[in-house]
């Protein structure tokens, strides 16, 4: 077993220097002295050692994660949660204050029923404010990126949970608003499974092709809104990497959040037109286009921020 062994090279990328020196290298070095025994026994021992090490060191790792970079992780989580709540309230305020909002639903009930669909948008967008505010003083780019990916994954899980609640919340809102209990559900009140079943059924009939395309688009848009958390997280990390003051960071984060939400609604109108006029364009491509575009922007911003930091260091 040599230093350049592929298994060791891979582990060196994912494990800390301490884990490599104390657990991985000694275990791999033992393989060299066990000629005659199958190599898989050594790899099995290494897997077990890494699993035990992960469990044993998890409390210390959690403590380190909590305290590092002036407690950036808990600050980021708190800032993201606060931004998500504010964003949700801003998104549902027009509906609540508009004429369409029925007086028969109380304010709290109104907020509870309208929040899930607003949260699907507000939760990923909250990272644009929370991550730059918490990580703007961090110097380790790789660490910021890894932590951001962790927060993005949490946002994806949160947005996916909200997405599951949206159909029932919408239906409950309609029932309470109308006072009738037997309102049939529409596409906005169908879950992902019902939507899929419906557009697959429509695709089998010649007359239902256009309706099927629209439903397929709705299905893909719901998933892409959740997937937005990944490029938004990367963009947030790029903003954090600019290392500006609190006011500037808050301003740029707020502007990016507002810009993202405004662009999302504008794109939704344009997408409906494209779907109606261009039957050759797949609905999934239209739905995921914003994610791809935002990912390209986020990657460019991340690289630019890296180049700027390298220049500053030089």
């Amino acid at each position, binding site marked *: *077993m*040599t*230093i*350049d062994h592929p298994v*060791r090279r891979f582990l060196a990328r994912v494990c800390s220097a*301490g884990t490599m020196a*104390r*657990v991985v*290298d*000694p*275990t*791999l*070095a*033992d393989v*060299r*002295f*066990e000629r005659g025994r199958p190599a898989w026994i050594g790899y*099995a*021992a*290494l*897997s*077990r*050692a890494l699993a*035990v*090490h992960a469990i*044993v060191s998890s409390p210390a790792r959690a403590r380190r994660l909590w305290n590092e970079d002036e407690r950036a992780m808990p600050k980021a989580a708190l800032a993201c949660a606060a931004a998500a709540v504010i964003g949700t309230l801003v998104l549902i305020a027009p509906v609540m204050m508009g004429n369409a909002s029925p007086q028969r639903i109380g304010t709290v009930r109104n907020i509870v029923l309208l929040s899930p669909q607003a949260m699907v948008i507000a939760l990923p967008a909250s990272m644009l404010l929370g991550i730059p505010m918490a990580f703007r003083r961090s110097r380790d780019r790789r660490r910021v990126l890894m932590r951001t990916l962790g927060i993005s994954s949490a946002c994806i899980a949160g947005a996916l949970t909200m997405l599951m609640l949206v159909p029932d919340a919408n239906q409950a809102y309609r029932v309470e608003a109308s006072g009738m209990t037997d309102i049939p559900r529409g596409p906005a009140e169908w879950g992902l499974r019902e939507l899929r079943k419906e557009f697959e059924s429509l695709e089998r009939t010649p007359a239902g092709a256009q309706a099927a395309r629209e439903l397929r688009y709705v299905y893909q848009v719901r998933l892409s809104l959740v997937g937005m958390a990944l490029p938004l997280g990367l963009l947030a990390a790029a903003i954090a990497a600019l290392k500006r003051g609190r006011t500037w960071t808050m301003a740029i984060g707020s502007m990016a959040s507002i810009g993202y939400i405004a662009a999302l609604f504008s794109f939704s109108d344009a997408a409906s037109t494209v779907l109606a006029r261009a039957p050759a364009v797949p609905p999934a491509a239209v739905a995921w286009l914003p994610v791809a575009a935002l990912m390209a922007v986020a990657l460019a911003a991340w690289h630019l921020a890296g180049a700027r930091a390298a220049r500053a260091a030089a």
Partner: protein
Amino acid sequence: MSRKPAALPRLSAKESLILDLLTRDGELYGLQLVAASKGRLKRGTVYVTLGRMEDKGYVTARAEDAPDGAGGLPRRLYEVTPFGVRVLKAWTTLLHHLAPELAR
């Protein structure tokens, strides 16, 4: 106001066994410890336990001299520290007084 006393050193059964073997045999490799323990230490966990013992100051480790062949991974040799010896003695004495059936 009463203050919580500083934690006393503790030894798990595996840590106690490792200190015992290192005190008896001197410097040993991980695999030698596994072999000497007659099945009580497993090769999948011995390095995790040794790593924790290094953190606690019970043992020290050094890489062996450069192995044959370019780029070969060196094994680690473990040795008990004077603090480790004192902790083992104190722990064994304590067990003899409080729980003789465990001190065997």
